């Protein structure tokens, strides 16, 4: 124990203590509350320990809050997916455009970055005006003399529920044949790893189509998302996903003949064994009545996604632009000499090199969109059902003095964010040590 270490330890001790109390202590407190029956604001409230009942309720019960929570999870999933894809593609395209040695690049860079300087509350308020069905964006075509648009944006209460029955069967067949052809092509080229990784989603789509046709009931045409996910089978789905992830990880480790394969392979084999010997049947079945409304993509989310992408695609652009500037000109020249055209330079050379940036951007954007609250609060208020998300529900639980249920939702939200953030932090820390 030398002075230097002691000094270093003393220097970080205050922040360790403060973080321990004000972050982790409070998270622990919230987790504890979520296991109690706390509601109401009595001086000495009853906080009886009731185990995981609140969580069970959230995923199975039919109170006034619980179906809303399940809808919120689905909304978050769709919002996050489209928001990520939108920001990354738009950000990359803007970065590529700025990379073309244009005049006054600085001005454009600033303009694209400006939205990020606003808070979501401001963005939300302004876009709320723009999305007013009677004016704003819908009135744009009238500038050139055309009829105004009639899309209802945020006022749209319809949901897009998709099942394969709505797709004409020839098109379904073409899609599936196309997938198969691509798979076969990879196999024939001996890209076995690629083939396996492509094969998994392909099998999932095939399973979905099959399940849809197997469960089709013409009488309930519009009521169920056929064959797709239902809450009652949620634990099954989660188990399957875990097994698949372990398998893929093991395959990749074997492929690269790294040592990870050994200590990843054993649990993987056990998991596969468990899964195929009736393991999922031992999982508790969530008792969901058939009365659950269908889950789909709520059209009102489109407006939210546009506003969110507008706000953060500039940030993604800045990250990509920094990355593109870091790619040496020699590489590009070499590629051009080898016969690449301009598009291929970006897709084949630069984009693969920017993978770490894509990952970082996806992590940052992903955790923003999972806990989105202010944008939705500003655009449609806390009570609009088609765009409800867990972040807003924590607020409304606090409003109704349902502290235990609100804490449970907050903990679920924390876990969702942790699933994204923790692996990222782990790799980052490991990276620092290796340097």
């Amino acid at each position, binding site marked *: 124990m030398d002075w230097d270490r002691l000094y270093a330890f003393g220097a970080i001790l205050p922040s360790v203590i403060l973080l321990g109390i004000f972050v982790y202590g409070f998270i622990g407190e919230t987790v504890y509350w979520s296991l109690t029956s706390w509601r109401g604001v009595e001086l000495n409230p009853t906080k009886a320990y009731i185990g995981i009942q609140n969580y069970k309720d959230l995923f199975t019960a039919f109170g006034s*809050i619980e179906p809303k929570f399940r809808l919120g999870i689905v909304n978050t999933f769709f919002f996050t997916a489209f928001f990520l894809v939108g920001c990354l593609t738009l950000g990359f395209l803007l970065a590529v455009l700025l990379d073309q040695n244009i005049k006054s690049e600085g001005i454009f860079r600033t303009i694209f970055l400006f939205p990020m300087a606003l808070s979501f509350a401001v963005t939300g308020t302004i876009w709320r005006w723009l999305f007013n069905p009677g004016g704003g964006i819908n009135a744009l075509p009238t500038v050139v003399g055309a009829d105004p648009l009639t899309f209802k944006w945020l006022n749209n209460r319809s949901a897009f529920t998709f099942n394969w029955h709505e797709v004409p069967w020839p098109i379904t067949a073409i899609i599936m044949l196309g997938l198969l052809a691509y798979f076969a092509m990879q196999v024939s080229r001996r890209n076995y790893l690629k083939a396996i990784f492509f094969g998994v989603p392909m099998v999932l789509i095939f399973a979905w189509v099959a399940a849809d046709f197997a469960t089709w009931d013409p009488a309930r045409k519009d009521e169920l998302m056929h064959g797709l996910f239902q809450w009652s089978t949620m634990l099954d789905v989660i188990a399957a996903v875990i097994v698949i992830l372990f398998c893929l990880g093991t395959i990749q480790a074997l492929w690269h003949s790294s040592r990870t394969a050994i200590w990843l392979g054993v649990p993987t084999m056990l998991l596969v064994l468990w899964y195929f010997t009736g393991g999922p049947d031992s999982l508790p079945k969530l008792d969901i009545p058939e009365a659950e409304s269908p889950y789909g993509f709520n059209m009102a989310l489109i407006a939210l996604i546009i506003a969110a992408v507008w706000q953060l695609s500039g940030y993604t652009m800045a990250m990509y632009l920094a990355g593109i500037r870091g790619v040496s000109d020699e590489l590009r020249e070499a590629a051009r000499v080898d016969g690449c055209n301009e598009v291929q330079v970006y897709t084949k050379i630069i984009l693969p090199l920017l993978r770490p940036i894509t990952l970082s951007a996806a992590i940052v954007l992903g955790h923003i969109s999972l806990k989105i609250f202010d944008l939705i609060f500003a655009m449609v208020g806390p009570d609009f059902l088609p765009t409800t998300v867990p972040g807003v529900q924590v607020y409304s639980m606090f*409003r109704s003095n349902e502290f235990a249920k609100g804490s449970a939702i907050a903990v679920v939200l924390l876990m969702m964010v942790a699933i994204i953030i923790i692996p990222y932090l782990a790799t980052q820390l490991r990276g620092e040590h290796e340097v």
Partner: protein
Amino acid sequence: MTRRLVTLAIALALILVVVAPTLAQDDLSGQLEIFSWWAGDEGPALEALIAEYNTLHPNVEVNNATVTGGSGVNAKAVLKTRMLGGDAPDSFQVHAGQELIGTWVVADRMEDLTFLFEQEGWMDVFPQGLLDLISTDEGIWSVPVNIHRSNVMWYVPANLEQWGVEAPATWDDFLAICPTLQDQDITPLSVGENWTMIHLWESVAVSQLGTDGWNALWTGEKSWLDDDVVATWDLFGQILDCSNADEDAATLSWQQATDKVVNGEAAFNVMGDWAAGYMMTTLGLEPETGFGWVASPGTAGTFIMLSDSFGLPIGAPDRDNAIAWLQLLGSNEGQDIFNPLKGSIAARLDSDLSLYSVYSQSAAADWQADTIVGSLQHGAAANESFMGEFPTVMELFLGARNSQAAANASQVVCIQSRICEG
């Protein structure tokens, strides 16, 4: 120059120190912290009250802790945090009725004010219907400062004449003139975001269930599954078909919904009488010529009220000063200073009507004569737990337009908020 100023200031300060105690024959001193959400348009009314308090009790330093945000959205959250953290203000603004009783009174955090009501003779000057709403068997819990009316239908007289319709007396009348208006591309009824829908719904429900049925819903004597409650949802759906609910309602504030009536896009709008203040002060319209009003269809003779009131939390640091504050609020002077500026009417039956606007005078006349019931949306009828979840019920109905499903969901909310027996 500066030296002169300093000398002057010191001299003044000395004079004040010597003279002030002789000026005020008042034994109150120290601090008074009032917590409210009156800012912006309502700020001046509160300032006037505080100024009056300062002249009465010059030794008390009033600390005006205002948290902005319409109908107290943010203030309620801050208040909750402070109360749970054991840092109660001396007196705080709260909607009179269940919003206070269902949250803070059942939690044993408020003082009973019966002694004050008896000492000041308020039992006789407030209408019985109001006293019923702010009391429980254990006591009276807050001093109502102002009264707003929720069930008012607004219109522009000149426009109605032009379109050849009259203000409807019942919802059936409204549904009858609805096609006439729609044929002329006029929205018969303008509505806004979720809470304005609930605001409209309470007017519809009172017209269908009557005052007794409405009150029975909140005592748990009446089930939400009863046929007449389900029928209320049916009627509400028909009314929404005559509105802009499916077009742009979800993103309109109440002001924007009122604007639609003023600028001739819509014929009617049901909103509380703060809309009168908005149209007179902000839009500069004259009552009776620029805009007209009538009790919302089927509720003539009923006054759906909401009231801002102040209570006395247990453990208020400056209890005596807070009681003096409540005395001022309940007095004729206090109410007549505050309400003309706020655009509301006094809760007392003996206020000086000459100070009020034409609209407020008509509302005050109804306040004296009508049956009084509490508003759901504005905290008088139901506790916060119910109010927090009812918007979801409304959303379910707006999405699916299924009356039975809405009734079932309301019953669930009613049981969860412990109004009904489960």
